[in-house]
């Protein structure tokens, strides 16, 4: 799967195998039998590199790191043409077996994991608290699942493209209450390869390309929840990372045409839009219900269908988001095209948005 997408990406970018002088691989997770996957992949593809060959890992941000490392290799001058690739084969092991591993990732292994908090259970508790604190009914938050499915219907890469009704979302079996089957991510396989190069090399291809115009990062210094009573809903790392990205890009939130947000659950997308400042605290769900985050709305969010409908192979999802951002700003998104899109924001996170990594991409044609 990985080798095929690499060949496809190189062809699209007008790059041949010897041009690639660095490789960054998103760690493929515990489902992949082959260890040291990055060097194995280079061997399979016959890529010899002078810049770097590295595998990166950073929770849900893993794919974001892969892209970010590729960008940094270009910025530092150590490479001119970097392959950033992620592959995720989640269906390789059963869900319960995967959860044996993943509860050790999101919880303190001796004082939290012992109670069985599966990764999405942390978001579920955010959902309950949000409904309590802002008096928001579940059907308002659940609308995000329907909205994202509408977007995915026109995405040929999406895992789920059948129409989805609000009734179906609300009546689905519970997974982590209050969230049901369609408000949490399905298990997904996937692979993405990106070519990141110097602008001089991109110009040589004679094709339109995307420029990285801004970048921001922030980690709030806690994992999942603070050890003192404080709001768990403010996702403040995203607020700060986005501010840094907008500042380095020399632009404003209002100028961003489309937002690709790492949001494994409905509530996460809502809280992320509020942390970005698109909507006031407590009003993000209602804004989504009023189509503000739909294609054609004021702030189109997750135009590819997001983690819920495009699919969520976690280590790969942020790379998919870069693909979608490029599709949008280069005018290749067909029936899900945001009219006149020029600037796109991509956001990945780790923990429970304890950290956020933000890139702003701009079309250049």
């Amino acid at each position, binding site marked *: 799967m990985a080798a095929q997408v690499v060949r496809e990406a190189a062809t699209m970018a007008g790059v041949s195998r010897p041009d690639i002088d660095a490789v960054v691989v998103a760690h493929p997770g515990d489902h992949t039998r082959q260890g040291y996957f990055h060097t194995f992949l280079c061997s399979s593809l016959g890529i010899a590199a002078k810049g770097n060959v590295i595998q990166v890992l950073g929770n849900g941000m893993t794919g974001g790191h892969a892209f970010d490392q590729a960008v940094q290799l270009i910025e530092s001058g150590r490479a001119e043409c970097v392959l950033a690739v992620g592959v995720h084969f989640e269906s390789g092991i059963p869900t319960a077996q995967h959860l044996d591993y993943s509860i050790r990732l999101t919880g303190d292994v001796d004082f939290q994991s012992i109670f*069985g908090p599966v990764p999405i259970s942390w978001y579920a508790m955010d959902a309950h608290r949000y409904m309590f604190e802002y008096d928001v009914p579940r059907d308002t938050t659940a609308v995000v699942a329907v909205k994202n499915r509408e977007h995915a219907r026109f995405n040929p890469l999406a895992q789920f493209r059948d129409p989805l009704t609000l009734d179906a979302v609300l009546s689905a079996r519970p997974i982590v209450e209050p969230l049901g089957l369609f408000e949490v991510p399905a298990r997904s396989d996937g692979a993405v390869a990106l070519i990141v190069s110097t602008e001089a090399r991109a110009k040589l291809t004679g094709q339109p390309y995307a420029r990285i115009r801004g970048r921001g990062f922030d980690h709030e210094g806690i994992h999942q929840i603070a050890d003192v*009573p404080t709001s768990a809903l403010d996702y403040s790392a995203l607020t700060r990372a986005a501010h840094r990205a907008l500042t380095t890009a020399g632009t404003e939130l209002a100028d961003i045409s489309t937002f690709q947000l790492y949001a494994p659950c409905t509530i996460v997308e809502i809280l992320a839009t509020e942390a970005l400042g698109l909507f006031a605290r407590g009003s993000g769900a209602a804004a989504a219900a009023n189509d503000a985050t739909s294609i054609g709305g004021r702030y189109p969010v997750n135009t590819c269908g997001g983690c819920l409908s495009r699919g969520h192979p976690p280590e790969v999802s942020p790379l998919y988001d870069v693909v979608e951002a490029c599709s949008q700003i280069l005018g290749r998104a067909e029936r899900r095209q945001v009219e006149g899109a020029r600037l796109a924001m991509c956001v990945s996170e780790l923990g429970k948005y304890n950290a956020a990594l933000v890139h702003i991409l701009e079309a250049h044609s």
Partner: protein
Amino acid sequence: MIDVPLPTIRHNGPRPFPPRVSRFTRPFWTALEQGFLTAPKCQACGRLRFPPRPLCPACWSEDHVWIVLRPHGRLYSFTRIHVAPRALDGDLPYAIGIVDLDDGVRLLCRLVNQATFADIGREVETVVLQYDDGPLFAARLI
């Protein structure tokens, strides 16, 4: 000084996902066995920390004393989980919650009640779950 042990709820069988016990955390589990939920308090800056860690995240001091936490607190949020790791399959469905104790500590633990949305923000107290191989801590609605 808190000298009344927490209520204990007896469970047959071993803990499904037992914690490791290290030289640093042994006092915590020994105290819990005796009915007391404790946390390290930094001797340099006075901050309580949970989960227990050897260094204070606020000032990096190692100096600490173990403080017995008062049992009373409030339920910040909760969820009931319907898909579990293999080790916890026998517990399904099970509820976990974020509890804010009056002593200013936030922790995650099991809820022994069938909590509902209306219970968010309500008062809880900590309890000890005593298994065959050792204790766990939990909370229940008052």
